[in-house]
Structure formats: structure tokens, C-alpha cells
């Protein structure tokens, strides 16, 4: 019989190769088979599967039937058993199935429709078991570890949450990034687990397994990919905004320590275990170089997006209409300019910044102003920040007072008289009358000055901070 390859062969030099990215899980067997069938009709036969990338070679457009089967090493820490693979391949090829492509996880076979041979799987229980094994060593193990990491990050983010997190990108990132990841990964895992549960009894009863339709898989995987892309963009956006204002060699090392080294060591450990288990040599040096080159490219790309740090940029980026509080405003004749400390921008807070200004006079007295400006996008966001600030500060005072706390001190964070200054909120946030929070028209100020509430200092600075229209 003429081999299927000799019928469909086409000159690769004339047509070249085609590469396509796919996002699929082990339960998407039927989707893959249909995709490969459609591609064959267009004149492309899958000939290599590398992770999420499929490579196609040109063939005469024709109808082919595909079968995707899973066949992987005993554990993710083993090399493939080539003897077993050869036996399996021999059975399939003898039966009339030709191998199109394979990797460490699956084999893709094809045949002409007129070749009426049995399917590769003739027992649903065996088919179910092969998919279960593939998922157990793939999606389920990696997603479970990922979920554990995400939940730990979320728990850490929530337990350390303070009002500052609402206007600082780094703080927001700690909550939003794991939450988004949880939604995306959790959303992806639900159909996988549901498929396993639904088909377990079918496989036991010898009934054919049910797979999701082509369109349903496309939609599911499309949503998943979009979710991942969104998270990726979100992280890049936040990382760049953080690096824009805090570029430092220490931060680079933190990145290296937190991302590159654990990942690199994990991969190396896996390679090492595989090597010991199989007693086969592999070119580890090439792999190590590959890992570090990849990491260097990723870090380089991140830093390229950030650009260079410009020390003057922070001052110039504060809009001129925003009033700057100086010591002259407090009635002193000390001459100095405030120094900007930090400036942030998040989705909820389009502009926020902090500055401080201090001076020691001839008598050795120390004068200090620290100011935080937060421009919330909406009124409800301003309310959340303000209420959270009161809650955090109250809790901090209570923590410090320990067992000496009495009822008077619990109510220590008291309200000023906001109507007097045309403010929405005004709170004293410290035990020694040095820190106040002022809120008007979605703008929140935290002002820290010695005796801020005494000596009419507050009455002096409110008109300056909020302009004439008080």
C-alpha cells in the first residue's frame, strides 16, 4: 500500500513552514484534532509540537483524520522512556496510523479517511486514564502550585493592607495582581475539573467520553489567554511606573533574587533530578546559559520600557496649579524649598505625591513638614481612602497603647469641625496633634507638622492647600 506521506508530500523549499501558537489543555483533544484536520485541508500538516507552539509543513490539501493521544514519562522528573515510546509507536503505525508530531506529552497521529482502521483508543477507561495522567503531570500540578503561590500572595497582601495601598502602585499590585491571577487560573481550572468529574463515571461505564465543542474550547482558551495578557500588561504597567520613580540597583537585585534565581534554580534542580534518575548526560551548560539569557532579555526589556531615571522629572511632573506648602505658610521666616520624596499614579488615583521640608534654626529647634497629596478619581474612592486611613491610624494607636488603653484613648481619633473650613472630612490622626487628614473634592491631604492642630496652624494652611474657594 502506498504510504500516506508519499500521497500528500509537497516541496518544503517552495512553501516554507508555518508556525502557530495555541493554548490548550489535555481535555481539548477533540479541538486539537479538528484544528489539525482544518489545517490539513488548507495544505498544512503539523510536524512539531513545542509547548504552545505548533510547526506545520506544507502538504497537498487533503482530508486527513487525526488522533491526539497522551503518552508521557512516569513523572515530570523523568526523561521519556524511548523503548516504551517505540513500542507504542510500532503498534500505532502497524495499525495504519502515521505519526505527524510528538513531544514529551502527546503524540499526534493521522491517517487517510478511507483507511478504515480502529481508533487508537477503543476503551473509554483507557482514554480517560491517559488524559487524567497527562493532566496530573501537567496542568493540575502546575496550576495547584500556582494557586498556592497566588493565595499566599493574596493573603500576605490582604493582611498587610493599609490605606497607602490604595494610591501606591506597589501596594495595589500586591492585591490586584494575585486577585486577577486567581480569577484567571481558577476560571481555567473549573472546566478541567468539571470534565474529569463528568467523564469519570462515563469511563467506568464504558460510555464514550464527552469533549467540549470546538467553539466552546476556542472561547474558553481565548478568555484565558486574554486574561493572562491583561495580567501581563498590568504587571508591566505597574512595574514600569514603579521603576520610573524608584530606579535603583538595589531594586534590580530584589528582582533578581525574587524572580530569576528561584525560577532558574527550580529549572536546574529539575534537570539535575532528571539526569540522576536517568543516568544520561545532557548539555546542562547550554540550558543554564539559555535560562540566564532569557532572564536577561526579560529584565532588559522591562528596563528598556522604563527608560532612564531623571532626577528633575519628579518636580516638573507636579502640576503647577497644585499649591506647595512651605514654612513661610506657617508664619516662620525660614527659607527653604520642599523636597519631593515620592510620586505615584494608579488606576484609582491619577495623581499622588509626597514631599517633606525640614529646617533646624539657630536655636537648634527642628521644623518639619511632611505632606501627602492624594487625588482620588471618584468621591467613593476618596471616602474609602479616608475611612481606611482613620481605621489604620486608630488601630496603630491602639496597638501602641497596649494594655494601658482606656476608653478616652479609643476615641482619640476625633473629628475636627469640618464645616468651618468647607471640608468633607478632617481628622486628627495622631496622639500628639501632629498629623491630620483633610479631604475636599476628592482630594486628600495628610499633613504632618509639629502642633498641627494648635496655634491656628491648621487654619493657616487649609486655605493655601485648597485654594481660595473654601
Amino acid at each position, binding site marked *: 500500500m502506498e504510504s500516506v506521506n508519499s500521497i500528500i508530500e509537497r516541496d518544503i523549499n517552495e512553501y516554507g513552514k508555518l508556525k502557530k501558537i495555541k493554548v490548550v489543555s489535555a481535555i481539548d483533544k477533540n479541538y486539537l484534532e479538528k484544528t489539525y484536520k482544518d489545517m490539513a485541508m488548507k495544505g498544512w500538516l503539523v510536524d512539531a509540537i513545542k509547548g504552545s507552539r505548533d510547526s506545520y509543513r506544507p502538504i497537498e490539501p487533503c482530508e486527513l483524520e487525526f488522533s491526539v493521544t497522551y503518552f508521557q514519562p512516569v513523572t515530570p522528573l523523568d526523561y521519556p522512556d524511548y523503548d516504551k515510546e517505540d513500542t507504542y509507536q*510500532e*503498534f*500505532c503505525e502497524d*495499525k495504519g496510523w502515521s505519526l505527524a508530531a510528538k513531544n514529551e506529552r502527546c503524540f499526534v497521529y493521522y491517517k487517510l479517511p478511507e483507511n478504515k482502521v*480502529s481508533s*487508537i*483508543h477503543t*476503551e473509554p477507561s*483507557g482514554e480517560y486514564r*491517559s488524559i487524567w495522567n497527562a493532566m496530573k503531570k501537567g496542568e493540575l500540578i502546575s496550576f495547584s502550585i500556582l494557586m498556592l503561590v497566588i493565595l499566599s500572595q493574596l493573603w500576605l497582601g490582604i493582611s498587610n493592607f493599609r490605606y497607602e495601598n490604595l494610591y501606591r502602585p506597589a501596594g495595589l499590585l500586591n492585591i490586584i495582581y494575585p486577585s486577577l491571577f486567581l480569577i484567571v487560573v481558577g476560571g481555567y481550572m473549573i472546566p478541567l475539573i468539571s470534565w474529569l468529574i463528568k467523564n469519570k463515571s462515563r469511563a467506568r461505564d464504558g460510555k464514550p467520553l464527552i469533549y467540549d465543542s470546538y467553539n466552546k474550547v476556542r472561547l474558553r482558551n481565548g478568555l484565558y489567554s486574554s486574561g493572562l495578557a491583561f495580567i501581563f500588561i498590568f504587571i508591566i504597567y505597574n512595574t514600569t511606573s514603579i521603576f520610573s520613580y524608584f530606579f535603583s540597583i538595589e531594586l534590580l537585585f530584589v528582582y533578581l533574587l525574587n524572580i530569576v534565581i528561584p525560577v532558574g534554580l527550580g529549572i536546574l534542580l529539575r534537570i539535575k533530578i532528571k539526569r540522576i534518575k536517568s543516568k544520561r548526560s545532557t548539555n546542562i551548560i547550554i540550558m543554564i546559559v539559555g535560562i540566564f539569557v532569557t532572564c536577561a532579555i526579560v529584565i532588559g526589556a522591562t528596563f528598556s520600557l522604563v527608560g532612564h531615571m531623571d532626577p528633575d522629572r519628579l518636580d516638573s511632573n507636579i502640576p503647577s496649579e497644585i499649591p506647595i506648602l512651605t514654612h513661610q505658610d506657617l508664619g516662620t521666616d525660614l527659607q527653604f524649598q520642599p523636597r519631593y520624596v515620592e510620586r505615584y499614579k494608579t488606576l484609582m488615583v491619577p495623581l499622588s505625591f509626597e514631599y517633606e521640608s525640614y529646617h533646624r534654626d539657630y536655636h537648634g529647634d527642628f521644623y518639619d513638614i511632611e505632606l501627602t497629596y492624594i487625588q482620588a478619581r471618584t468621591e467613593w474612592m476618596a471616602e474609602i481612602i479616608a475611612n481606611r486611613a482613620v481605621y489604620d491610624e486608630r488601630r496603630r494607636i491602639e496597638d501602641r497603647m497596649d494594655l494601658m488603653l482606656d476608653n478616652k484613648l479609643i476615641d482619640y481619633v476625633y473629628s475636627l469641625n469640618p464645616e468651618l473650613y468647607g471640608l468633607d472630612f478632617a481628622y486628627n490622626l495622631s496622639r500628639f496633634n501632629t498629623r491630620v487628614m483633610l479631604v475636599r473634592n476628592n482630594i486628600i491631604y495628610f499633613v504632618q507638622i509639629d502642633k498641627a492642630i494648635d496655634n491656628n496652624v491648621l487654619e493657616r494652611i487649609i486655605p493655601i492647600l485648597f485654594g481660595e474657594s473654601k
Partner: protein
Amino acid sequence: MTRKQLQNLTEPMFYVFLCLKTPLQGYAIMQKVEEITNGRVRVGPRTLYNLLSRFEKEKIVEQVKSTSNKKSYILTPKRDEFLNNELFCLKQLVIDGERMLEGDINGKR
């Protein structure tokens, strides 16, 4: 009893056992199962691979040297007894079933 190892003896399993009284290669096993069941039972390559792996693990089947590069399989000697037991169980199943059905019919009549 030996049945403990393979609690649920399915049709394909049973026919693969039957075929392995003499050494056979994978393809020949698949063909022979189809032949003796007149195409009613078909064993796919992956199903056969799974069954043979499992049988080998349970030491019910072993590989034998073949003239070609391809592997051949045969039942291990002591498993003849296992096959006879299975056959006996199945025969008994049919006899019991027929007896009960006849009894039912006679009862109704």
C-alpha cells in the same frame, strides 16, 4: 484468587489473553482479536499498549524474543491456569444465567 489482580476483566482483556497462548506481535494481536470476534471487538493500539503494560506489570504476560526487531508477547506459563479459571467463571456465568432465565419463564408460565 488471581482475579484480585484484574478485578474487572473486560472483553478486550479476555480476547487479548486468548490470543496470547502463542507468541504474537502487537499488530497480530489486534488483527487476531478482530478475526476471532468477527470484527465485533476491536482493540486500538493505545488500548493494547495499556493492556500489555498492565499484564506485564502483573506478570501475566511476558515478552519473548522474536526474529524481527518487533516485540512478541506470550502468557506466562502459570497463567494458563488463570485463563482456564476465567473461562470456567464465564461458562458458569452463562450456565447460571440461562438456568435463572429459564426458571423465571417457567415460573411465569
